[in-house]
């Protein structure tokens, strides 16, 4: 195979896998006569998607808004906490165990408490999305700050730089690749948070739609909901990847060069 054909095949691979999986799925459902409320065929899912596109779109929009709001708060809070614990050893010692503790709580267990405080619907959904998404951001930014070379810090300190100078000139730029990498993880977690909360305590959103569909054994509609969530997740993930490439090209370029044996 020529290198060009190989590269073309490489770009086509994800699509081939998806189409292949759908084909096998469709054939298997036909061949083994699986009933629709157990596992609907892809064509049935598509039909449900078309038939209920209005409620699905409205719910998806609601979920997307909750996710993005929670994600936005998560970015701000995650950045602040990350910079704080990454630049002060005392703050790290005090806050890190607490953060680990908060992160190990299953968020589904928190939703009832949030409902008690905020009622149902949008507020707990946004909060759950935020609670799931801030942690990777905080930890990654803190790690990025901690990887500043001590020699470089010496160079700057011997010039009379303040801690704020070092943070602004070296620490924050150095941690940006870590920050953008964490956005990719966090955005998908924000979706998880929003959908969990909508499933447990909401009258709107994809989570609620799926719960309704499940109670009526409308399995194709449930699968349609899952498909829409997946699509939104991939789309927002790609946006994060794009932003990452745009702002921290220097970090990935260096890796590519190293892999090629240059640099």
């Amino acid at each position: 195979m020529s290198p060009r054909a190989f590269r073309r095949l490489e770009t086509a691979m994800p699509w081939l896998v998806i189409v292949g999986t759908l084909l096998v799925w469709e054939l298997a459902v036909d061949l083994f006569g699986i009933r629709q409320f157990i596992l609907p065929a892809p064509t049935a899912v598509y039909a449900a998607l078309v038939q209920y596109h209005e409620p699905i779109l409205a719910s998806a929009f609601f979920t997307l808004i909750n996710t993005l709001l929670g994600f936005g708060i998560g970015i701000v809070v995650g950045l602040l906490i990350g910079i704080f614990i990454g630049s002060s050893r005392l703050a790290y010692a005090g806050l890190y165990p607490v953060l680990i503790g908060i992160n190990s709580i299953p968020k589904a267990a928190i939703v009832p408490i949030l409902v008690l405080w905020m009622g149902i619907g949008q507020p707990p959904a946004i909060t759950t999305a935020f609670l799931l998404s801030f942690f990777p951001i905080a930890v990654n930014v803190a790690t990025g700050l901690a990887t500043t070379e001590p020699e470089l810090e010496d160079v700057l300190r011997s010039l009379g730089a303040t801690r704020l100078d070092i943070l602004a000139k070296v620490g924050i730029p150095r941690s940006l690749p870590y920050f953008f990498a964490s956005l990719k993880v966090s955005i998908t977690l924000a979706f998880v948070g929003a959908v969990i909360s909508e499933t447990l305590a909401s009258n709107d959103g994809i989570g609620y739609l799926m719960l309704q569909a499940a109670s009526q054994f409308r399995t194709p509609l449930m699968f349609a909901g899952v498909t829409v969530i997946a699509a939104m997740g991939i789309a927002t993930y790609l946006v994060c990847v794009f932003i990452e490439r745009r702002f921290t090209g220097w970090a990935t370029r260096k890796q590519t060069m190293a892999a090629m044996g240059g640099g």
Partner: protein
Amino acid sequence: MPNGALSIVDKAAAPAAAAPFVDIENVSLRYGESADTLAITDLRMTVGKGEFAAVVGPSGCGKSSLMKLVTGLLPPTTGDLRVAGARVTGPLKIVGMAFQNSTLLPWRDILSNTMLPLEIVQPHRNRLRRNRKEYEELACNLLATVGLRGFEKKHPWMLSGGMQQRTSLCRSLIHSPELLMLDEPFGALDAFTREELWAVLQDLWMQRRFTCILVTHDLREAAYLADVIYVMSARPGRIVATHRVDLPRPRTVESTFDPKFVDIVHKIRSEIAQARSDDRQRTAAAGAA
């Protein structure tokens, strides 16, 4: 010493060249509490203004600790340390530093890497925004003197190790520091590049006459560049010998084959070997006890 050009003196008769710019008197440095964490003991050293001093010694002798002491990044445990007549109490602000690792910022191009100190040191810091053109010209000229004309807009990863180290040298000199501290700056380079950079550094020093302290384990490097070489013992480090290198400048790679040059390198090598074997005996004795 029979050789007239080289006056080799012991530490008791340390040379007082000009008025000492860096004056280290009886300094010791200890990390933590116990005796074996003593990094430097009874250190005496003076470097005159505009003088090029080199510190050599076996590995782990506290050369890098010395760097931190002189720049004020670490306070001495005991003793007195003066730079430019004033006691060192905190990080000095007139120092340029370069290390074995070039520590360039990968997200900045060569020009703005070089200009980093100007964003921190006064009065440049306040003047930088309004006089950017002027400062950029300054940086470009400095880069040109080390042979980096045309590389201003390149990023560090596009450059070879030697070029990165040249940039690092420029960054340490852009704010015209009075004192330049070099910690094995050419240690990671191949032999040819290293010799090239010796000449580059010597040229810079002859033009600008800053005071320089070079920490190195390369004896030829020390003899090529320095006016005075201090030999440190194994840990805990102290000065066991001082050598003046009175070879004419500018020195070239040819100078390194001069019998005087070879002689001084040999002498230092045997002193360091002695320091190492003393250290081994001491360790053995401590182990037996």
